[in-house]
C-alpha cells in the first residue's frame, strides 16, 4: 500500500532551475555494470538475448527511502545475473493513466517482467496483466493476484517492533512521539508494533501520534515533530520517507528512530536504528524463476526470516544492554518464534483486541473482513492519538 507523494513541481517548471541536474548525466548507472553472472542457471537468456525486467517507481530513486530501496533491489538483480538480464526502470511515474503509457512503452521495448512498486498503480497493472498475458507482472503491497500477476510486500512492522525497543530503552520519561503518514492499516500496525516494542522494555511507556497525511512532506513533518517535542517527548519515531524528524530530534537533543533505509547519516547524534526493506533477495529469486520459466503467481509477504526486513546498524548512543536485548528479539523474529500479533493484545481503551493465544493472519484474501495485519485499524494499548487520522 506504499505510495509516495513526491510533489512533482511540474517537471517542466522545475526544469528551469535544473541546470545542476546536468551533473547527474555523468553519474554511472547500474544498468551498465555487468558483473559476472555467477553460476546461476537461468533459462535460455544470454548477453545477446537478455531477459528484460523493468521497475516502475512512483518516486525518485534518490529519495533515500522507499523507492531507493527498490532500486537497490533492481541493482541486486543486475549484479546477480549480469549480462543475461537487462534491468530498466521508470521513476516519478504518477498514479493514473500514465502507468498504462509506461507499461505499453516497456512492453514495446520487450520487457518480459514488470514490477510496480506503488499501491496506486494496481488498477492499471491489473488491466495491463490482462492485456499482456505473456508478460509477468508483480505489484508491491497490493491485493489482486492473477495468472501472470503476483503481489509482494514486507513486514516492516517487525522491524518497527525492534526500533520501538530501542526507543523504549532510550526514553527517560516514558514519553515517545511518532510522526505518522496516513491512518491506514500498514501504518497503524507499524505504530502498534513500535509501541509494543517500547513497552516491552519500558513498561508504561506511551507513544503519541501526529499524522501528516503524506509519505513525504518535510514541512509538515517538522511541525509535527516540533509539536511533539513541545509536548515533552524525549524520543521521536517516524514512518515517513525523509529524515526531517531526525533533524528536529537532533536539534532538540533527544533520540530518534527513522524508517525505510539506513538514515544514520542525517542525524547521527540522535539516531538509534530503524527498519530497512531489502528487496534484493526477493527480486533475485523471482527474476530467476521467471527466467527459468518456473515462475508462478503468488502472494508474498517478506519478513526477517527471509531477509526482506532487517534493522539498520545501531547509532552510537544505543547501550550495550539495549543492543543485546534487541538482537535477541531479532533472532526470535528470524526463527519465527515470536509474533507480536499473537494475543493477548489490548486496544488503546484497554479492551481485548486479539484474544490470548490467537494469532491474526497477514491477510485473508477469501474473506477480507477477517481481522488481519492488512486490515488492522485500531491502536494498541499505550498509543496516544486517534487511529482515524
Amino acid at each position, binding site marked *: 500500500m506504499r505510495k509516495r507523494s513526491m510533489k512533482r513541481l511540474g517537471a517542466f517548471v522545475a526544469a528551469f532551475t535544473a541546470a545542476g541536474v546536468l551533473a547527474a548525466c555523468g553519474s554511472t548507472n547500474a544498468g551498465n555494470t555487468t558483473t559476472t553472472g555467477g553460476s546461476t542457471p537461468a533459462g535460455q537468456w544470454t548477453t545477446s538475448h537478455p531477459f528484460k525486467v523493468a521497475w516502475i517507481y512512483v518516486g525518485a530513486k534518490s529519495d533515500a527511502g522507499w523507492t531507493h530501496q527498490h532500486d537497490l533491489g533492481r541493482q541486486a538483480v543486475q549484479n546477480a545475473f549480469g549480462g543475461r538480464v537487462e534491468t530498466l526502470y521508470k521513476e516519478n511515474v504518477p498514479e493514473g493513466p500514465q502507468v498504462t503509457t509506461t507499461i505499453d512503452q516497456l512492453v514495446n521495448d520487450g520487457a518480459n517482467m514488470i514490477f510496480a512498486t506503488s499501491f496506486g498503480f494496481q488498477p492499471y497493472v491489473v488491466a495491463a496483466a490482462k492485456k499482456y498475458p505473456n508478460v509477468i507482472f508483480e505489484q508491491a503491497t497490493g491485493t489482486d493476484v492473477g495468472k501472470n500477476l503476483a503481489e509482494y510486500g514486507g513486514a516492516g512492522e517487525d522491524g518497527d517492533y525492534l526500533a520501538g525497543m530501542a526507543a523504549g530503552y532510550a526514553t527517560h520519561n516514558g514519553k515517545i512521539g511518532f510522526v505518522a503518514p496516513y491512518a491506514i492499516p500498514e501504518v497503524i500496525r507499524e505504530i502498534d508494533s513500535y509501541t509494543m516494542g517500547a513497552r516491552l522494555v519500558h513498561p508504561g511507556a506511551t507513544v503519541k501520534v501526529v499524522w501528516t*497525511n503524506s509519505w513525504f512532506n518535510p514541512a509538515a513533518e517538522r511541525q509535527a515533530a516540533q509539536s511533539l517535542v513541545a509536548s515533552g517527548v524525549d524520543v521521536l519515531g517516524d514512518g515517513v520517507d525523509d529524515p526531517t524528524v531526525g533533524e528536529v530530534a537532533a536539534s532538540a537533543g533527544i533520540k530518534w528512530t527513522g524508517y525505510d533505509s539506513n538514515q544514520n547519516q542525517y542525524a547521527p547524534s540522535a539516531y538509534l536504528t530503524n527498519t530497512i526493506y531489502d528487496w534484493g533477495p526477493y527480486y533475485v529469486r523471482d527474476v530467476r524463476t521467471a527466467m527459468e520459466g518456473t515462475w508462478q503467481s503468488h502472494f508474498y509477504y517478506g519478513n526477517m526470516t527471509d531477509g526482506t526486513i532487517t534493522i539498520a546498524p545501531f547509532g552510537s548512543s544505543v547501550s550495550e544492554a539495549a543492543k543485546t536485548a534487541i538482537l535477541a528479539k531479532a533472532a526470535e523474529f528470524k526463527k519465527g518464534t515470536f509474533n507480536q500479533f499473537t494475543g493477548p493484545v489490548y486496544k488503546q481503551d484497554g479492551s481485548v483486541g486479539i484474544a490470548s493465544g490467537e494469532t491474526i493472519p497477514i491477510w485473508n484474501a477469501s474473506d477480507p473482513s477477517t481481522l488481519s495485519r492488512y486490515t488492522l485499524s485500531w491502536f494498541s494499548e499505550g498509543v496516544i492519538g486517534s487511529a482515524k487520522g
Partner: protein
Amino acid sequence: MIPISVRFEPRERLSRWTNVWVPFFAIVLALVIAGIVLAVSGHNPITTYQQIIEAAFTQPGAFTQTLVSTTPLLYTGLAASIAFRMRIWNIGAEGQLYLGSIAAAGVGLYLQNLPAPVVVIAMMAGGAVAGSLWAAIPGALRAYLNTNEILTSLFLNYIADYLMYYLIFDSTSFWRDLTSPAARVFPQGKFLPASGNWPALSIGSVTVPLGLILAIVLAGLLWGMIRGTRYGFEMRVMGDAPRAAKHAGMNIRRKILSIMLLSGAVAGLGGASQVGDFRHVLDPRGLEQAQFGYTGIVVAALARYNPISAVVAALGIGVLTNAGLALQGPNFPIGLTGTMEGILLFCVLGSEIFVRYRLRIGRTSGPVAPRRAEAAPGPARTAAEIASTERRELAS
C-alpha cells in the same frame, strides 16, 4: 568603452510572419542546444529524437497515450489562458480541477442507474459547476474586495486537495469504497460502473477520448468568443487597457467574476474528464501527483493565451511527457529529460521577446537613446488619448 549598443526596440507592427518564424527558430535552437547536451552526456541526439517521435507518435498505441496526456493539459491550459488574457491570474485551475473531479465522481455514482448519455452529461455539468463555484471564491474576492487572486486561488488549491483527501482518507463519505478487498488495505474511492465511463472515438488504431473532443470544441468556442463577441472585446480591453475599460463604462467587477466562473468551469470539466475518460474513480493521490493545473499555466504561456494555440501547446507538452517517460531509465537519467524539456520551454518562451521587440545593434556616439516618448505616458494625456493609444496597440 566599446561604442556598440544592443537594444530592444518595440516592433511598430506585429506581423503574422514573425509569429511563426520566431517560435520555429526557437524550437530549432532548442533542438541544437539539447543536442549538444545529449552529445556531451554521451547520447546520440539523432537516435534520441527518433525515440521521442516513436514514443509519442509511431509506436503501437503511442499516439493514443499522447492524447491521454494532452487532454487534461488542454483543459487547464484553456482555463489559464482565458483568465490570463484578461490579466486575471487564476492560479487555481489545480483546485478547480479537483472540485470538478469530486463533483463528477459524485454525480456519476449517484446517477449510475440512469442511461449512460444522461450520466455522462450530468457528470460534465457537475464538474463544470463545481469548478466554477470554487473559482467564484477568489473571483468575488478580487472583484469586490480587490484581494490578490494569485494568492487566494493558489491557497484554495490546498484546501481543495485536503477536501479530496478528506473524502477518501479521513471519512466514510459517499465517494469512498469501504467494502472491496483493496479498499480495506488502502483507502480508495468507489469505481464508477460502465454508465459513468465516457465513450471514446476510434479512428483507425487511435483512440480519441470524448473529453479531448469536447476540449477542442471548447477551444474553438473560446477563441470565437474572444475574437468575435462583445463579451470578448470587453475582455480584451480590460486585459490590455484597464483604464480605458473603466472610462468606457464597462462593468469590470462583473467581468472579473464571470471570467473566473468561466475559467473555473473549464478546469472543472477537465476534472470531470479525468474521472469519466480515464480514472473512473476519485483518485486524490493520482490527481495531486499529476499537477495538471500548474502545468496548464505553462501551456497557457506557450500558447500566449490563445485558445487555438493552446491545443498545439497542450499536445506539445503531452508529447514531451510521454517521450520523457519513454526515454528515462538506467542509461538516461530523469534529470536529462527534465533538462531537455526545460531547454525547449526556455527557448520558446524566451523567444517571445523577439516577437514583440526588435534587436537593434549599432554604434553609439553617446549615452543610450531615451525611451520612445509614447512608451511613457505622462500625466498630461487625457483618458481618451490613453484609451485610443492602448486600443491601437491592442488592434495591432
